């Protein structure tokens, strides 16, 4: 299969690496199939829709930000990142984590019922 992504151009891949989100991502419930992309030189992961390849979510592993972040069995927690030309204004969504199981290629998103986790948390500091 191949898709044309915004950030990485045309990518070719086998369908067995597709990650399925049965309930989609909040705001994009109709999109279920994603490619998880990692560039080794960058801290970000990219969750790129296969059905609408222009839709992509940069994400960061939340263990890097908060060692105590709520984990789910056999899943990795990611936060969706809001990019900004000014690096210090880049934020990560701690309220609605994306949980991905890279072994069985499935994922889901949650909204945490806690005021401790904001939807926009500054990702970087000086």
């Amino acid at each position, binding site marked *: 299969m191949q898709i044309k992504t915004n950030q990485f151009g045309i990518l070719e891949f086998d369908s067995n690496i597709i990650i399925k989100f049965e309930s989609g991502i909040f705001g994009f419930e109709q999109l279920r199939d994603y490619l998880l992309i990692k560039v080794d030189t960058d801290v970000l992961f990219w969750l790129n829709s296969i059905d609408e390849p*222009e839709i992509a979510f940069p994400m960061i592993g939340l263990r890097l930000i908060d060692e105590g972040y709520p984990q789910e069995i056999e899943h990795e927690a990611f936060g969706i990142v809001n990019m900004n030309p000014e690096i210090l204004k880049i934020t990560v969504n701690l309220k609605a984590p994306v949980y991905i199981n890279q072994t069985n290629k499935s994922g889901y998103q949650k909204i945490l019922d806690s005021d401790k986790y904001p939807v926009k*948390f500054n990702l970087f500091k000086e």
Partner: protein
Amino acid sequence: MLILTRKFNEEIKIGSDITVKVLSISDGQVKLGITAPNNVEIFRGEIYEKVKQTIIEASLSSKEKLADLSKINLNKIRKITD
């Protein structure tokens, strides 16, 4: 939209397995008890909207040209949880 009037302690059934019960009513606030299967997600409406809006913004801002983020300090949380 279906509009139902309920009193203290009365319930509403949504399908066979979702129950919403009025637990208390006091000046401008109503406390609801919701029983639903595990796979039914329950959110406060305004929080769901805020999350959705932030994610739509994230998908739009993902088209920004990538800066080199590798040399910038991550804003780690020492202890956000109890």
